[in-house]
């Protein structure tokens, strides 16, 4: 289900003293099955963009077209979009409210039209997919769980609807290393299964590892839309805009600066290592 963002602009509080342009004429297209990273400083418009994509907000100008239909056109059934798109906000555990984990995860499926059996199946699948033991946890209160477990339950609640495209807003914020690793791997697995992933993150190394394409916003404008290996070439530009380039790219850049050219499209540690070894051994 391709998503097309067509010359979209968004302004908060138009016509008042608090007026602020969050997005300015942004256009891009996301194909089925892609894994896209969205980067940008706080205030660049990333949150606004992702909310527009799932129809939580309506653009001031421009169109959002999903699977060929304008989602803000009169007559468009939002339900359609909700079934296909999932969004995990930062600190998603704040959305938990039910008396048991099972009920909370099933919440989104209440009006989905699925049968009780199908719902139960989806819930079980979702809970297991996020790495929790269904039998142990399904009847527990979500509020009795640890922080990490709560986050997993919250994510399961969104996965249960088996969305075709999933937006993640800084999903690993506040997680410890194991949590981070598990989560990134989950996103990769889902993508391998055909789910389109859109991940907002400051962590360029994580995106270099999993994403195929990176989009960068600056002050409401799209300043970069490129394959991940290309997106971090221009270190000066990115630094100027306050965008992190990741440790691997940083090392490559510094080595080039001191006389050991490492290709500018080196963004992953695994790609970098052979060069480090090469330099260390005195070769080229």
């Amino acid at each position, binding site marked *: 289900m391709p998503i097309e963002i067509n010359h979209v602009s968004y302004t908060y509080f138009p016509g008042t003293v608090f007026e602020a342009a969050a997005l300015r004429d942004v256009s891009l297209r996301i194909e089925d099955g892609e894994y896209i990273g969205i980067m940008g400083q706080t205030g660049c418009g990333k949150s606004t963009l992702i909310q527009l994509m799932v129809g939580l907000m309506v653009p001031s100008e421009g169109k959002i077209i999903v699977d060929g239909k304008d989602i803000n056109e009169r007559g468009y059934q939002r339900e359609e979009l909700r079934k296909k798109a999932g969004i995990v906000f930062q600190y998603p555990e704040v959305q938990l409210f039910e008396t048991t984990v099972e009920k909370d995860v099933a919440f989104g499926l209440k009006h989905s039209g699925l049968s009780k059996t199908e719902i139960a199946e989806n819930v079980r699948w979702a809970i297991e997919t996020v790495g929790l033991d269904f039998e142990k946890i399904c009847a527990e209160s979500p509020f009795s769980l640890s922080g990490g477990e709560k986050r997993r339950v919250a994510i399961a609640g969104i996965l249960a609807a088996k969305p075709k495209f999933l937006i993640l807003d800084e999903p690993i914020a506040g997680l410890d290393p194991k949590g981070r690793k598990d989560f990134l791997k989950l996103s990769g697995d889902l993508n391998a299964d055909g789910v389109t992933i859109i991940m907002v993150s400051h962590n360029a190394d994580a995106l270099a590892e999993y994403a195929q394409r990176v989009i960068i916003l600056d002050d409401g404008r799209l300043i970069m839309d490129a394959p991940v290996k290309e997106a971090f070439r221009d270190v000066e530009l990115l630094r100027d805009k306050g965008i992190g380039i990741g440790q691997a790219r940083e090392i490559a850049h*510094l*080595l080039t600066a001191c006389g050991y050219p490492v290709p500018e499209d080196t963004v992953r540690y695994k790609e970098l290592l052979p060069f480090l070894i090469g330099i260390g051994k005195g070769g080229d």
Partner: protein
Amino acid sequence: MIIIEASDLFHSYEYEGSQSRSIDGISLRIDQGEWIAILGQNGSGKTTFAKHINALLSVQEGELTVAGLDAKDPANAWKIRQKCGMVFQDPNNQFVSSVIEEDISFGLENFDTPDNEIPEKVAKALALVGMDGFEKKSPHMLSGGQKQRIAIAGVMAVDPDIILFDEATTMLDPEGRQEVLSTIQRLHAEEGKTIIMITHFIEEAVLADRVLVFKQGLLVGDGAPGEILSDLDLLDRAGLAPPLPVSAYYDLKKAGVILPRCPLTIEDLVEALCQLR
């Protein structure tokens, strides 16, 4: 000079009918002016330990002396808090007023600072964190990094000897983290404060004088960053990932490239490689 001394500290709490040990026997000494970084997985006891230092938690078992005061004596709690301030993780949950100068004077009022000294101390605290002139502004209009700096100003206004940071950078974006870290560096270098920083960004631990590693209520590592952060075994046991330059050091070693020292930062790594030639 020793400013914190803990001896066989234990702490347990009850949860759903059973007892759990959050601190399982910690002993250590911290000198005045040291910058300590504390690492460990969630639930390893780091925050529980930190809350003992500023008497937010009372000592159940063991001995603890902070800035010359016996932390076991409940009467000392308030005095200890004057010597030991704390900055918390969520920038939004630390303010009592929607006007910055009022919020910063909160601490000063609590410790009976005379009215006429307050405006000067507020101004000084704001200058220390690089937020001069923000007296009349509202905290909610600030960025995360700025909010934390205001929180730091609120703590510094009282001029404590020790400052605790409980994952103060976790909820910030990279820019905000940098602002807070620079502020901590200044407080340490220029004001001589004792810093105890719980962090879950291992790169931040590189800046400290000494790193403590917690695991399941126990201190499993205590040493200089160079020593602790290059100990792959220790980090793995504690559920932590080493900094990238450290991984590179070991990967290079496996491939036959031996660097003179284990680099902790990217700059160290690049320098070491360049100097090899």
